[in-house]
């Protein structure tokens, strides 16, 4: 397992003030695999996800200890620029959050900042929009505002935006929680396709969704990892009593 692992954590803990949100988590994530992080509200799964590309840096009073190893380097090392880390580890948020710009500019902005020439930018935007299964729907109105898209289209635009920089890992924080079932199904299909290129880590509240889309499931409770197994294992024969109780709806 260790050989293929692209991003891993070692004794990672995150605390807000004196509340410990994530406690001593060591996990490995592999390329071309979808991992689902599940657990009840407040179990630390989102905090853990945001720690993987240093999105917690902007919250006041957050302390992170332990390591996140990406390409053999600890991204919390003082010599590491978190901006460069976030270009390799993309993120998709709970609610679609396109920029107040045109559809094209939403994807193009970061690519351009990355130093590409305008014709390369155009190419990358097209590839990313195709990759996010949005191209056919928007190719005739790239100039119009991203806010004219439906919620599901906006979320796919955000996925295209994250893909356009060519990251290796895409983090998704409950990407379907604000979407209707049809839009959700499209995102789930998309995740299955993206898995061919990226390591995808998805936080989800929805256990059926975790079962449908993921290869591996990690169950969080009170900031700790209770169980991390192949999805088919964890849903059929969970090792831990707590996992079984959660999956069968005894608490949640």
């Amino acid at each position, binding site marked *: 397992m260790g050989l293929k692992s692209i991003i891993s954590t070692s004794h990672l803990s995150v605390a807000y003030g004196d509340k410990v949100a994530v406690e001593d988590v060591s996990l490995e994530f592999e390329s071309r695999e979808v991992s689902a992080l599940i657990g009840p509200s407040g179990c630390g799964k989102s905090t853990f996800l945001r720690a993987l*590309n240093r999105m917690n840096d902007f919250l006041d009073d957050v302390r992170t200890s332990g390591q996140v190893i990406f390409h053999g380097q600890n991204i919390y090392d003082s010599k590491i620029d978190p901006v460069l880390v976030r270009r390799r580890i993309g993120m998709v948020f709970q609610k679609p959050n396109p920029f107040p710009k045109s559809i094209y500019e939403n994807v193009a902005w970061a690519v351009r900042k990355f130093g590409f020439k305008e014709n390369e930018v155009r190419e990358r935007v097209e590839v990313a929009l195709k990759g996010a299964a949005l191209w056919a729907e928007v190719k005739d109105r790239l100039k119009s*505002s991203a806010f004219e898209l439906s919620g599901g289209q906006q979320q796919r635009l955000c996925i295209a935006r994250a893909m356009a920089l060519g990251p290796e890992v895409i983090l998704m924080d409950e990407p379907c929680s604000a979407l209707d079932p049809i839009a959700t199904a499209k995102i789930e299909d998309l995740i299955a396709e993206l898995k061919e290129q990226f390591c995808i880590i998805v936080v989800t509240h929805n256990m059926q969704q975790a079962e449908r889309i993921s290869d591996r499931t990690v169950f969080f409770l009170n900031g700790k990892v209770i169980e991390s197994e192949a999805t088919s294992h964890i849903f059929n024969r969970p090792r831990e009593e707590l996992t079984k109780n959660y999956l069968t709806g005894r608490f949640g």
Partner: protein
Amino acid sequence: MFAKKLHWKSLPLPVAGLASLIIAFLFLAFLLIHIFSEGAGGLSWSFFINFASRFPTKAGIYSALMGSLWLLALTALISIPVGIFSALYLEEIAAKNAFTNFIRGNIANLAGVPSIVYGLLGLALFVRILGFGSSLIAGACTLSLLILPVIIMASIESLRAVPRKLREAAFGVGASPMQVLFEHTLSQAIPGMITGVILALSRSLGETAPLITVGALAFAAFLPESMTDQFTSLSIQIFNWASRPQMEFQELAATAIIVILSITFMMNFVAMLLRWKLSSRKATS
């Protein structure tokens, strides 16, 4: 069965609200009618291009109007960059600790300090210690101090109103903190900032007490040619004319009030237009 019933208990609030609105509106209408009936007759081209004079028929607002425009421009040049950068620093860059919280709270307090106090500060600091004398720049610095708290507060409020998810989106695609600030956050906050700036500047236009304190002229038959020149302003000219007993000067004061009100209304109108135009491309939360 489902018919609406008018409950007498719910009546007092709308009635009191409407009554208050009518009272406020009546006062405004009375003020405008009074000013216009007294001053409108004096509006003529010569009123704008004549200097102040002992003879009411020859008196105009040339030097006062030019003085006010100079003040407005200089005050804008000083207060806009200082105010906006202070707000950016306080809200976006400085660490949130007890010290910056203390400063933030006290900026709100400063907005409530009487303008005459700023006048005295301006007299001591700009006129005397820094040796600007009773010049345009001393007046503009004083007015800038006076409106800075308003500009800073308005800018902080509009920065705060930028949805957090927009910043997260930008950070998420690897934007640097400065790119997030200048290319995403600021473009969303600017309509609110502009409105705050224009309203603050239009307030500075009417200020009289601080200018009298820093030693603006009550009578000037010349135009200021540089920012170190002595000056007078519309507000001071109005004060001067209104304090004279002769009816002719009272009418001149009313005419000058029409001019100053028109400028203020125009500035507020521009603020409204800009806000309306710029906010059409804003992010919704």
